[in-house]
C-alpha cells in the first residue's frame, strides 16, 4: 500500500520569519531591562519603634553607632572610618569571638537544628543619617552592614553544616536567622528641628 502519491508540495515558510519578528518586537516593547537587584530592609512598626526609643535597658556595649554626616563621611564613635573598616567592625561587634565585655552581649538560646548556641540577641546597630547626606552613601553603608551579616551567617553555616547559607534547607536557614539576627535601627539627624 502506498501512502503518498507523487511529490508533497513544499510549505511556504517565507512568512515564518515575519511572524517571529512580530513576536520579537512585541517582547521588546513590553519588557524592560531595569535592574531587579537591591537591598531589602524591613522597617519596624511605628509602635515598636516608640518602645525601642523609650527603652533604657539597652546597654552601651550592645549598641554600635554609625553616623553618616552631611559631608558623607562615616563615623564610628566619633572616629572617621572607611567602608571596608565598617564591615569588619560590624562583624567583630556582632560576632564577639572572644566574649569581650565591650562588644555585643551574647546569651545561650536553644535553637532547633542547631542546639544551644550563644546568640547576640540584644545588640543594635544604630545608623544615624544626616538629612543632607547623599543616598549613595546610605546605600553603600547599608550594603556593608548587610555584607557583614552575610559573612557572619555564611561562616556560621560553614562551621555547623559545612555549606554556604544559600544552600541550606529552609528549616536550617530559619535556624541560622535566629542564631544570627539582624538588628538595624535607623535614625535621622536633622538640623532643621
Amino acid at each position, binding site marked *: 500500500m502506498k501512502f503518498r502519491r507523487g511529490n508533497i508540495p513544499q510549505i511556504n*515558510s*517565507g512568512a*515564518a*520569519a515575519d*511572524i*517571529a*519578528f512580530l*513576536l*520579537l518586537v512585541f*517582547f*521588546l516593547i*513590553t*519588557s*524592560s*531591562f*531595569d*535592574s*531587579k*537587584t*537591591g*537591598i*531589602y*530592609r*524591613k*522597617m*519596624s*512598626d*511605628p509602635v515598636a519603634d516608640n518602645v525601642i526609643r523609650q527603652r533604657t535597658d539597652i546597654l552601651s556595649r550592645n549598641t554600635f553607632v554609625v553616623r*553618616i554626616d552631611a559631608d558623607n563621611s562615616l563615623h564610628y564613635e566619633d572616629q572617621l572610618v572607611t567602608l571596608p573598616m565598617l564591615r569588619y567592625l560590624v562583624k567583630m561587634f556582632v560576632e564577639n569571638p572572644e566574649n569581650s565585655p565591650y562588644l555585643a552581649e551574647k546569651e545561650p538560646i536553644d535553637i532547633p537544628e542547631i542546639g544551644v548556641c550563644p546568640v547576640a540577641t540584644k545588640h543594635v546597630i544604630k545608623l544615624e*543619617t*544626616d*538629612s*543632607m*547626606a*547623599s*543616598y*549613595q552613601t*546610605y*546605600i*553603600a553603608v*547599608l*550594603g*556593608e552592614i*548587610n*555584607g557583614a551579616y*552575610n559573612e557572619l551567617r555564611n561562616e556560621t553555616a560553614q562551621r555547623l553544616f559545612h555549606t554556604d547559607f544559600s544552600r541550606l534547607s529552609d528549616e536550617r536557614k530559619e535556624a541560622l536567622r535566629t542564631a544570627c539576627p539582624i538588628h538595624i535601627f535607623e535614625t*535621622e539627624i*536633622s538640623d532643621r528641628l
Partner: protein
Amino acid sequence: MSRFRPSKYKTVPLLNTSALPDMVFTLLFFFMIVTHIRTVPVMTQFELPTSKTLQKLEERSLLLYVMVGKDPHQIQFNSEFIDLTSLPEHLQAWKDSIDPDERGEMTAVLKIDKNTPMHIVHQIKRCLREEKILTLHYSGVKLTS
C-alpha cells in the same frame, strides 16, 4: 561576441531563507530570558546607587513603586508624577484600590537617584511606615571591582 555569457547564467540564484525564522526565534528567546515584563513605566530619570552586596527582588509580594529622579522634585508614584506632600493620600488611595485579601505582604520598591539628599528618602520612608508598608527594597546596581 564570445565574451558575453549565455543568458541562463544571468539569473541570480535564490537566497535560502529557511534558517531565518530560526535566527529570529533565537533572538526572541534571548530577549525573553534577559528581560522581564514591565509593570510600571519608568518615566523618571535616575542613576541608581551602587553597593557591594545586593539581593534580588522577589516578585511574589505586592509591589508598589516610588521613584525619585535626578531632580529631587520629580517624584513618580507607580505610573504618575506626584508631589512629595501628597504621597500619603496617594498611598491611601492605592491601598484602598487593592482587595483586602491580597493586601498581605506589600513591598515598596524605591528607585532613587544616588545624589538625592537623605531627608527626601526619610520623608518617603515615614509616609510608607505610617501606611504600614514596612518592607522596602532599595534598588541598586552591583559594584564590580
